[in-house]
């Protein structure tokens, strides 16, 4: 099975500071992967590079069966390729309803004229109901997103990601600021999502990662320090030094 996403030899520098240093990493489909690392390890920059927000100085990011290079593509084109991203802070459109938020994310043609003459369909409505049920927001569909609780916004955002039907899901610290019950719900969501697609979760919280029960990549100073099961990497003396030495 070939890799869905292959990052190789990527480096990026901000004003002399090497945020990512010769990073290589690959992920299969389906797969659930956790990326951990201390502050400043380059986790967010790594996501920025995959989604096209930051252009690296060197390296390749290859995608899919044809190994297309994602570098040089715009953010929206990368998203249409099937890469969805959830930000650290929940970013939903707070002035619009949950239904509108989900409808916008639904996998459909994205051109302005397609959207202008888009007509609501029964299929679409059903899909929205399904997604709302999946993330547990059925009750909240007609509500304005701004009125939701922090955890509900996180789920709405995950719901929007699922609505895009991506092949690769990038999730940045989904559990931050959640109650234990909400965390559990989130874990379930992610594990379920990873059954049919690739999911990369960037997380700080070891407990949450343990619950995901998946392969773990440890980033440090912009490159991969260790990779393997959580038990394997936590036994690695370098990882211990990086985490405990600080």
């Amino acid at each position: 099975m070939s890799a869905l996403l292959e990052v190789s030899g990527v480096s990026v520098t901000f004003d002399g500071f090497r945020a990512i240093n010769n990073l290589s990493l690959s992920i299969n489909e389906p797969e659930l992967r956790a990326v951990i690392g201390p502050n400043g390890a380059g986790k967010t920059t790594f996501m920025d590079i995959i989604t096209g927000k930051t252009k690296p100085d060197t390296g390749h990011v290859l995608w899919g069966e044809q190994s297309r290079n994602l570098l040089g593509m715009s953010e929206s084109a990368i998203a249409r390729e099937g890469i969805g991203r959830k930000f650290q802070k929940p970013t939903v459109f707070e002035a619009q309803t949950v239904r509108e938020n989900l409808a916008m994310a639904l996998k459909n043609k994205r051109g302005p004229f397609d959207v202008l003459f888009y007509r609501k369909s029964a299929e679409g409505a059903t899909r929205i109901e399904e997604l709302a049920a999946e993330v547990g927001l059925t009750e909240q569909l007609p509500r304005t997103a701004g009125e939701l609780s922090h955890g509900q916004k996180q789920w709405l955002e995950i719901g929007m990601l699922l609505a895009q039907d991506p092949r690769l899901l990038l999730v940045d610290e989904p559990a931050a600021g959640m109650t234990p019950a909400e965390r559990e719900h989130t874990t379930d969501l992610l594990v379920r999502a990873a059954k049919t697609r690739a999911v990369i979760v960037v997380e700080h919280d070891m407990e949450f990662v343990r619950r995901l029960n998946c392969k773990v990549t440890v980033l440090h100073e912009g490159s991969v320090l260790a990779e393997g099961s959580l038990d394997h990497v936590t036994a690695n003396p370098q990882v211990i030094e990086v985490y405990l030495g600080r």
Partner: protein
Amino acid sequence: MKNSFLVTNRSVLVFLLCLALFTLGVTVLAEATGAGVISTSFVKTLGKTLCLCLIAIAMDVVWGYCGILSLGHFAFFGIGGYAIGMWLMYARTHDIVVGSLSNDVIPATSAEISDAIGTQIFGVVGSSEFPLIWAFAHSLPLQLAAVVIVPGLLALVFGWLAFRSRVTGVYLSILTQAMTLALSLYLFQNDSGLRGNNGLSGLQNMPGSDLGQDVLSIRFFWASAVALGLGYVLFAFVISGKMGSVIRAIRDDEARVRFLGYHVESYKLFVFTITAMVAGIAGALYYPQAGIINPAEIAPIASIYLAVWVAIGGRGRLYGAVIGATFVSLLSSWFTGGGAPNIDLGFYEIVWTDWWLVLLGLSFVLVTLLFPKGIGGLFDYITINREKGPKA
């Protein structure tokens, strides 16, 4: 399709009804068609106000809904006015010239006619040659097409350049203002081909027609009302449904929309261009009622006033823009026309023709500070009190 859209957007129907009633009322009271209570010049003022409402809703879509504070839409308005003004001026001068040459024993050649028209139009800037941009001035259909195409094309090119390089927010506003300034400075030149600071004049006369100003004024009023109605429906359609959802999402968080897979630049370009075209139409209807257009009309300050109307009326709701444009422009002509009584403070007399701009500037600051939702925000209180619904 439009049917179902109109049914689901009741406010559009309400607006159209109000507009129709207003038009009917003015028609009944106007000189040419009714009681003659409303003077011809006031019919023109009302017709012009409708055109301003049309560009105001265009501004509202681009700013209130899409978040692009364009300070260039009055430039598109002016271009529309110039495009139609070229035909009006050419055709009328043509009629006059042909009339005066017909007294000659020898019939005039087409070169002689063209020279005479050129001298008539461009004599004021010391030229008699037709500049290249007047190539289609003889043809009404082509100039009508130019009313839409030229602003649209300019907006398309400018927008493509600006959005492509991710110029956003305040920078974009300033860039659009720079564009407007460049255009008005260009038009101020005598060799711009559009008569420099003299502008185009005599536009209130309809070539080839002997209708009086009273009849013309009411016809233009009707045309403006129809244009406003159609424009309102068009924009209501654009901002409803999923398109509206995406546009508002771009206003609130452009980057997030991009990660949803939408090509944000195309959407902005679409909104920017279509509103520019409508602005051109509004200008083409406005200036025949005003009678004259000159580069000062396009100066950046005009576009700022446009933003002021929309802000005072209430952004993000089409009727807010209409209210703002009507309210502020009529109030402005009341104050500057000497309609408002001066206030004698004993030591100083406030003459409103001098102090109106101060009042406008300061009230604009106050509205921005205290009532960011503008006059239209008042309607929210009414609606919220009556029915607490999620209708945005």
